């Protein structure tokens, strides 16, 4: 009898052993992400999930985004800018090595930037590098970048994940075995399950508190909830089910972290297509939408209404929500003036994210109130990119523009909403030539005003960052100035 009991107890101990160990870990953290990165090379792909694993952890650029969105030095410790705004001289950090042991110097910077701007480059953000005329290594610790025209956003551009510095020897294999200069080195990727990073012993800067970071990929919102509740995951910085946040808030084991992102979510309008080429029709759409009701319904109350294509937390933000206030009466009048008093039928093409699918239903019903019959068409991302984004074969769509400070897309004639304005382009040209912060902010305000006046799109809300974490895990980013999970400042509270 006692023998049988002993065997049973041993089996139970074996079964429970690994769970008990996982609960006691204090030196590592497991971070949940909804999407798995397709590869781990941020210079060769647009997927946000790539940066969410490697940005600031494995790879570093000349500059970087800090948690508050400001641009701070990274591999470039300091820099000077010539008076004409064309030449940037960067002084690089000392004693930096890549994770494979090779030394980092000015030649690596020259290689990385030249590679990104080359003819055959497959960098998804190639425009970041388009006004670089030349990159030169003055000495091993100094790099000089010459621009073809002044660009006040150059330091900002160099902070993107797409502009990180890679080594020539490892550039070709970064997709599966990333080698960078950051505080964590790549350890292991169980495809379909997780990526593990380990603290680098040779990091040039201040070493991080965590010894290991594991990013675990859980696509299904219900499974994400269960994994948090079961303690398998320590933090889920972009939790996919906002409806469950209330439950986490009530539980002292967890902390709910609500911040903002760079995601301006718009009801995109095809400006090149009748009747939307008439500004009155676009204005009518803008006034037909009750933004707060939309946020409450689609995002469970998290999210900030916007009235132009600009993030509310940016210092240059201009509150233009009143200009697109909810006024169905005015919408009907405008449609009447445009000769559409009988109402119109349009299509509303929605990509997969829940803000678009849930938001789309609400937007469609609000539009119906003013006589615009929107037929909902749901699309996969690949279809959306082809039909809406590339071919502009749509009337209305809902999408979040997640790149930081991306108002300049309104200066591109062939961008999917097909807005063409010489005035706006002039404002952007002026912005490029200005590097003084205060002057730039004034110009950015004029840009916001211009697209709000033209009602290019119906601006809906700034996408929130809704995260959940173990209450003892501190130092996670609250906001998302770029799509990243910077683990350098994360630690367990005693």
């Amino acid at each position, binding site marked *: 009898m006692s023998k049988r009991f002993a065997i049973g107890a041993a089996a139970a101990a074996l079964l429970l052993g690994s769970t008990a160990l996982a609960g006691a870990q204090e030196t590592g953290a497991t971070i949940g992400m909804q999407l798995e990165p397709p590869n781990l090379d941020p210079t060769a792909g647009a997927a946000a999930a790539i940066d969410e694993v490697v940005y600031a952890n494995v790879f570093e650029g000349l500059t970087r985004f800090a948690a508050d969105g400001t641009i701070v030095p990274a591999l470039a410790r300091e820099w000077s800018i010539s008076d004409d705004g064309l030449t940037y001289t960067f002084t690089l950090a000392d004693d930096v090595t890549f994770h494979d042991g090779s030394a980092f110097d000015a030649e690596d910077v020259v290689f990385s930037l030249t590679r990104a701007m080359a003819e055959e480059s497959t960098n998804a953000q190639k425009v970041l590098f388009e006004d670089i005329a030349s990159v030169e290594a003055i000495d091993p610790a100094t790099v000089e970048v010459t621009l073809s025209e002044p660009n006040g956003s150059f330091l900002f551009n160099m902070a993107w994940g797409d502009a990180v510095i890679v080594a020539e020897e490892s550039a070709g294999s970064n997709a599966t075995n990333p080698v960078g200069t950051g505080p964590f080195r790549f350890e292991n990727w169980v495809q379909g399950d997780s990526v593990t990073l380990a603290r680098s012993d040779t990091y040039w800067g201040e070493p991080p508190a965590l010894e290991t970071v594991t990013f675990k990929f859980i696509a*299904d919102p219900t499974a994400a909830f269960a994994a948090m509740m079961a303690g398998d995951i320590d933090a889920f910085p972009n939790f996919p089910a906002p409806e469950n946040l209330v439950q986490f808030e009530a539980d002292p084991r967890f902390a709910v972290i609500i911040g903002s992102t760079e995601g301006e979510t718009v009801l995109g309008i095809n400006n090149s297509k009748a009747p939307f080429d008439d500004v009155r029709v676009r204005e009518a759409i803008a006034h037909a939408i009750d933004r707060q009701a939309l946020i409450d319904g689609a995002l469970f109350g998290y999210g900030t209404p916007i009235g132009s294509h600009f993030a509310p937390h940016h210092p240059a933000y201009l509150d233009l929500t009143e200009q697109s206030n909810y006024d169905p009466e005015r919408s009907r009048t405008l449609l009447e003036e445009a000769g559409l008093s009988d109402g119109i039928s349009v299509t509303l093409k929605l990509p997969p994210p829940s803000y678009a699918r849930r938001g789309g239903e609400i937007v469609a019903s609000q539009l119906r109130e003013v006589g615009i019959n929107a037929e909902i068409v749901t699309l996969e991302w*690949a279809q959306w990119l082809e039909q809406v984004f590339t071919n502009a074969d749509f009337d209305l769509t809902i999408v979040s523009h997640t790149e930081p400070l991306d108002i300049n897309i309104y200066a591109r004639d062939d961008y999917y909403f097909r807005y063409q304005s010489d005035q706006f382009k002039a404002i952007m040209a002026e912005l490029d030539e200005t590097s003084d912060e205060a002057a730039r902010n004034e110009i950015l305000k004029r840009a916001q005003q211009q697209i709000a006046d033209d009602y290019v799109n119906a601006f809906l809300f700034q996408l929130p960052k809704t995260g959940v974490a173990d209450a003892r895990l501190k130092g996670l980013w609250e906001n998302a100035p770029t799509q990243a999970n910077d683990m350098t400042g994360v630690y367990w509270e005693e």
Partner: protein
Amino acid sequence: MLRYLARRLLVLALTMVAASIVIFLLMSVVPGDPAQFMMGMNADPAALAALRAELGLDRPLLVRYLEWVGGLVIGDFGQSYTYRVSVSQLILDRIGLSLPLAFLALLLSVVIAIPAALFAAQRHNKAGDISVMGLSQIGIAVPNFWFAMLLVLLFSVTLRWFSAGGFPGWDAGFVPAMKALTLPAIALALPQASILARVLRSALLDTLGEDYIRTARAKGLSRGQALRRHAFRNALIPVLTIIGLQFSFLLAGAIIIENVFFLPGLGRLVFQGITQRDLIVVQSVVILLVFAVTLVTFLVDIAYAFIDPRLRRGTV
């Protein structure tokens, strides 16, 4: 027997050729461009064109088809567009999960179904039979993803005996890997066991009416002995068919359960491949699954011939 085998093999080969053409054509008419998907909304047209050339997407359809099939024959599945690793490696990793999971689930369902069916058949129309049949009806009716969520709720969230999901890989050791597969296997096995138990029970009841059973009973065997010794073997043919079908289903169709337990299996690889337009991965996995299904069917056909000698003599 040899002619039977040869004919079965020819059917297998023709099925594969036809399937490869259909799959390739379907993939090439799917809307959406893999390069565009990878490069996102800010992509520069020149960079897009460069990537398309790098992936070989700019070449004619026939060239791409022949290259793919040529590779398949020698076991080279090509390179994944998005993961940038060889497709064979990707599939091999996933099979390392899907195959053991399918076997485990099948084993569980057989282990549950056979005793349950024998138990029910012996008590035909009595309380035992009715309750087994009632339970199996519930087993079929309950959606397995919902059952899986209940399992997670009980064993992971409340009792904390198992992780809520994920798969540490076989490198992490046998016990952690098997532990990760336990709940998913149970969730997968439940409906399969229910189906199997019902099929086996009715097959047993059919054979119980046969003359040879009456003879066996007349020789003095009890009902249970006759059932186990004589009826069981003869009832196996329909059961084998079902097991063959179930195995194919478990290998490819576990995707919903894989999602609930966030397991990196073949089903999710296909699903991810479709959303990311990693078409080379999708077509390779699908052709592999077609191969697995036809192979299982082939093996089941052969097994029939062993169980029932009548099938061997060319009346197929």
